[in-house]
């Protein structure tokens, strides 16, 4: 029996010829990532275990992006722990506010992750880098501490769900519609402990930003990671951005999959996930009765340049409806700057939206855009759990940037 893409990457990092689903292995890590929530406890554990130096100061990445710019004194303390650890360890890839971006937009953009890598990050959406043909998965602070100290970690080799894309995605549909469709089909634990292995002729029609969104949300159906094949789109993205060599892994023809899902991209409609699970997916057209108090366009899921462009296309020459707050958050300084150069920020401000420096803040109810009782938000973020964005009796609907922008204009959930 052959191996999936994930299994091949894990085998290579474990120094093994082959691995099979369910096997426990120890693998070398190319990157260990943490942020201002998960990093400080990891640093504490790192010190408690008696470690003095990180395994490689070039391979540990620290991004203060969750409660930043610091929302209060406690947040400032956490960021200070990260900053001082980075300085004392000579960590090259520490990104201060002002050059910071939301971690999962920032790492690919900076060329820090390449196809064929094995990466752990103390953030559940670390699976985003699978869009580049990278094995990457979310872990907790203790795993991060151990990874920083040793440059290795243990994995249980996952089985896989094969996702075959057919047809081509037509705009204004986007990666979010694909992600929500998949989560709707699989449910929030349908891919638990499994790898989502994407392929098929339709992949070519998915932009790099689409793929980042799909891979990002793999964890919302329980997956350990997601992987896209390394094709011309991937190579174009990596070229000129990365300095390390990359490896494109191709699944064996006889690789074993627990399930195969065929997605006809031509048949997709704009989708929304209703409270309080990302799997409660319905077509936008069925939700026009839902009034909106706030719209958030951003996050590691949909704060990329294409998302900014899609939102601006809807908001250009229009106004955010009275009674609705609209927050737009480019996911990195580079995206922010490019949005500025293209006049997108001007469109947002003229439409009555508030534009912010990069932060994860609103997505996790951290800071900015916190909802009160009874308020409803349409967000391009990744989770709509109870109390996710504020009051326990608030509601979050998940959608792509075009739907979110259209909803901001209409004052209710609306198609672009």
């Amino acid at each position, binding site marked *: 029996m052959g191996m999936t893409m994930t299994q091949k990457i894990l085998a290579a990092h*474990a*120094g*093994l010829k082959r691995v099979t689903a369910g*096997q*426990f*292995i*120890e*693998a070398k890590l190319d990157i260990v990532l943490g942020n201002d*929530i*998960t990093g*400080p*406890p990891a640093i*504490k*554990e790192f010190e*408690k*275990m*008696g470690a003095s130096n990180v395994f490689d100061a070039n391979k540990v990445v620290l991004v203060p992006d*969750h*409660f930043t710019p610091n*929302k*209060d004194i*406690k*947040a400032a*303390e*956490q960021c200070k722990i990260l900053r001082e650890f980075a300085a004392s360890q000579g960590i090259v890839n520490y990104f201060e506010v002002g050059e910071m971006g939301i971690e999962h937009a920032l790492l690919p953009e900076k060329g820090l992750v390449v196809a064929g890598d094995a990466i752990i*990050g*103390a*953030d*559940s959406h*670390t699976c985003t880098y699978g869009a580049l043909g990278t094995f990457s998965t*979310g*872990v*907790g*602070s*203790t*795993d991060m*501490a*151990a990874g920083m*100290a*040793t440059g*290795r970690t*243990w994995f*249980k080799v996952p089985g896989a769900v094969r996702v075959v894309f057919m047809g081509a995605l037509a705009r204004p549909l986007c990666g979010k519609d694909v992600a929500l469709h998949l989560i709707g089909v699989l449910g*929030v*634990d349908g891919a*638990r*402990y499994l790898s989502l292995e994407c392929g098929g002729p339709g992949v070519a029609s998915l932009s790099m930003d689409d793929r980042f969104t799909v891979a990002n949300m793999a*964890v919302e159906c*329980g997956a*350990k990671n997601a992987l896209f094949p390394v094709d011309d789109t991937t190579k174009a993205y990596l070229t000129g951005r990365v300095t390390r060599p990359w490896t494109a892994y191709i699944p064996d023809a006889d690789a074993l999959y627990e399930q195969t899902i065929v997605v006809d991209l031509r048949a997709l409609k704009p989708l929304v996930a209703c409270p309080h*699970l990302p799997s409660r997916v319905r077509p936008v057209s069925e939700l026009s009765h839902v009034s909106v108090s706030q719209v958030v366009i951003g996050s590691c899921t949909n704060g990329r340049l294409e998302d900014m462009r899609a939102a601006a296309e809807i908001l250009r020459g229009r106004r955010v409806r009275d009674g609705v707050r609209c927050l737009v958050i480019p996911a990195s300084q580079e995206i922010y700057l490019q949005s500025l150069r293209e006049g997108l920020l001007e469109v947002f401000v003229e439409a009555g939206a508030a534009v912010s420096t990069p932060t994860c803040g609103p997505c*996790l*109810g*951290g800071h900015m855009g916190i909802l009160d009782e009874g308020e409803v938000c349409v967000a391009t973020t990744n*989770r709509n*759990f*109870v*109390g*996710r964005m504020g009051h*326990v009796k608030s509601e979050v609907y998940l959608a792509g940037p075009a739907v979110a922008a259209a909803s901001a204009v209409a004052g209710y959930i609306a198609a672009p």
Partner: protein
Amino acid sequence: MSIFVYGDNVDTDVIIPARYLVHSDPEFLAAHCMEDIDVDFAERVAPGDIVVAGQNFGCGSSREHAPLALRACRVSCVLAKSFARIFYRNAINIGLPILECPEAVDGIAPGDEVTVDITTGRIENRTTGRVFAARPLPPFVQGIIDAGGLLSWIVRSEEAGLTGGNAI
């Protein structure tokens, strides 16, 4: 001993809401554990109590603060039909006892008196008299627990010169 029974997909956002994540002190986290779905959980929970839940317990965020909060509430065990991947890993790494046993979860109602033997996986509903056997932990995972958590396991392995190997 009390049991706290919840449904499917109890996520890390309700186990410990993000608004408290400017702290990582376990006692502080424990004071707010579960409050978004069970407002006075922290006041009612007592050492040795058991949390019983459905599928996919701990889905969502990678925040280790979630199992830390439950551990600091001194729950003796989380018994669920299944656990989300990162939560499972985090619980093992920090030493929060967890067991998967769908049959036992279906066979437990609020108010039942339940005893759990973490080592053997034997679960007894003393109210109904039914006994269940939880799925045993994989030996490798049991090894981490026996060592007292991931970091002790690593330190112990390194002292024994065991790391650097590939297949475990």
